């Protein structure tokens, strides 16, 4: 079998993880009603799990066949993985986003959002001089949160976290 699409660094491992997750879901699906009949509530989930599993096995095979015979040294492979999947901005953004959600519960929308926006914009504008990027980040964060409060609470009449 040949593949017509590019290999992504870490694809083999990701596919294995997805298979493990799908098997876990399959165990849960079997508890619903097993295979008692095609119109039973458990049939649909099981059928979809089979579809996902078969697809993932095809992708696993492709990923396995696509691996080059000569393996690159681990540091090179890690660098390629980091560049393609987890570049520094993404590596920083995901934990920051999670901290923001925790902050929302602890500090409320206004403070958590201002802190999140200031830190995120400040970090992403790394090519600017420190004092100007901090000023810009604080100004944008304050302006954005004020606009969101005004616009969404007044115009859209939605509750903010």
């Amino acid at each position, binding site marked *: 079998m040949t593949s017509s699409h590019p290999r992504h660094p870490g694809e083999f491992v990701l596919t294995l993880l997805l298979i493990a997750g799908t098997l876990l*879901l399959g165990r849960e699906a079997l508890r619903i009603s097993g295979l008692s009949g095609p119109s039973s509530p458990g049939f*649909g989930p099981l059928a979809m799990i089979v579809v996902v599993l078969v697809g993932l096995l095809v992708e696993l095979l492709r990923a396995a066949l696509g691996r080059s015979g000569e393996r690159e040294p681990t540091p090179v492979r890690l660098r390629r993985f980091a560049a393609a999947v987890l570049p520094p901005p993404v590596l920083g953004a995901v934990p920051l986003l999670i901290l923001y*959600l925790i902050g*929302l519960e602890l500090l409320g929308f206004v403070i958590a959002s201002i802190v999140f926006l200031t830190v995120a*914009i400040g970090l992403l504008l790394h090519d600017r001089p420190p004092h100007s990027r901090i000023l810009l980040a604080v100004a944008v964060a304050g302006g954005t949160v004020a606009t969101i409060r005004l616009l969404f609470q007044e115009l859209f009449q939605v509750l903010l976290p």
Partner: protein
Amino acid sequence: MDTALGYFLTSWLDPDLLVLVAVGTLAGIYIGAIPGLSVTMAVSILISFTYAWDTNEALALMVGIYMGGVYGGSRTAILLNIPGAPAAIATALDGYPLAQRGEAGRAIGVTTVVSFIGGLVGIAALGLAAPLVAEVSLMFAPRDYMLLGILGLLLVASLSGESLVKGVIAGAIGILVSMVGLDTMTAQPRLTFGSTALLSGVSYVAVMIGMFGIAEALVQLHTIGSPMVKQNVDRIVPSLATVVKHLPLALRCSAIGVWIGALPGAGGDIAALMAYDHAKKSIEKPSRPFGQGAYEGLVAPEAANNAAVGGAFIPMLTLGIPGDAVTAVIIAALFVHGLRPGPNLMVDTPHLFWFTVGNLTLANIFMLVFGLTGIRLFAKIVEVPKAILLPIVGVLSVVGAYAINNNLADVWWAVGFGILGYVLRVYGYQLGPVVLGVILGPIVEANFRRTMIGVHESWAGFALELVSHPITLVLLLGIVSSVLRGTPFWPRLAAKLRRSAGRAAG
């Protein structure tokens, strides 16, 4: 007829709705133009904000954003060689070379006018075809809806992304997400892992905000360092002679756009690429070679992608099957407002259909007006750095997810699906099939179960059902052909069929 005209003119005569369509179109043009912000993202986030609104107001805004956004993507495609939206990928092929020649203004003018023409053709097709499709769809049995849902998923899976297999996996993941919670027929908990919090299922709006808002923002972080290009644009209104010269191609490509848009699951991006291909094959003497600044290479995709907007509403309003990702999101909005798109929508709530057609027409006119003016403001807005834009998208996604049920759990879901969506995107899985799976999953499953109950759970009876009715057979053939096209054998099979056809003709 008078009643239909009255519904059609609702937004034209109501100042509030008129302003909402105008604001939506203007916002759509800018959102579509900013690389990294998509129309689907904007509409997904907006749904939750319009919960408290009247249905008409929510629809007026969303329709405006949709129409404006599909057009807006062409601006940055021409000026910066960065398509603002997937539907503008083909536009960049000749648009950017035109900008490099100093003809950006003229190129934008031509795209604006042909987008308007394409939009009108799409709306006319919607107005004329939808009532007919709705009548035919009243003959649809549950098995047909099941097949139509599967066809939609397969089409979007095969036409987007790296491989059909990845598309199918993504669609199946979406269907699995839709199955979490209490079963609608038996009230039995499914895939809940014993958690009571999951009994009510996963909010599809949270899934959409995660997949189209947060995931997209994370993907855009890959190109955070790319510099913003300053733009220089002159007068953009094209001459009448230019418009007349390109009208036949614009009309042909609009027809392609309507057809592709009306296919469940396929939208403006595919329509634009197919129209570009049509222009390359059908125009013998383009104004310049294609890829080097041919106006025909602008006219074809832009007419098609805006015509696809009207086309995408046909299956959505008549069958309840989304024509593309944005109409999938708009279906979710209609669900939120207690409406069920489908054949009965035209019977029970005809005002909604003509109201949508009226809004689309109005948005198309606003698109023409805003498209040909306000270029200086436009240039400033699209120059906002991603470093500022993307964190704001993150906050808006959080606010939008919270607004669904005023519950932080939905925000966590949105972020969770955002991270999952990012990983899937990076590894070549498209997110469109996931979201379509979430919307189409319940339709496919419920109609499959109804069909099975109808044949007393007999697989032989089920197979007989699939081949003994003309509509069902056509849909089944569509599915088979869609699957075949995704296999490595297809090119050889197609070549063999062409040779056989050639021999038979010769």
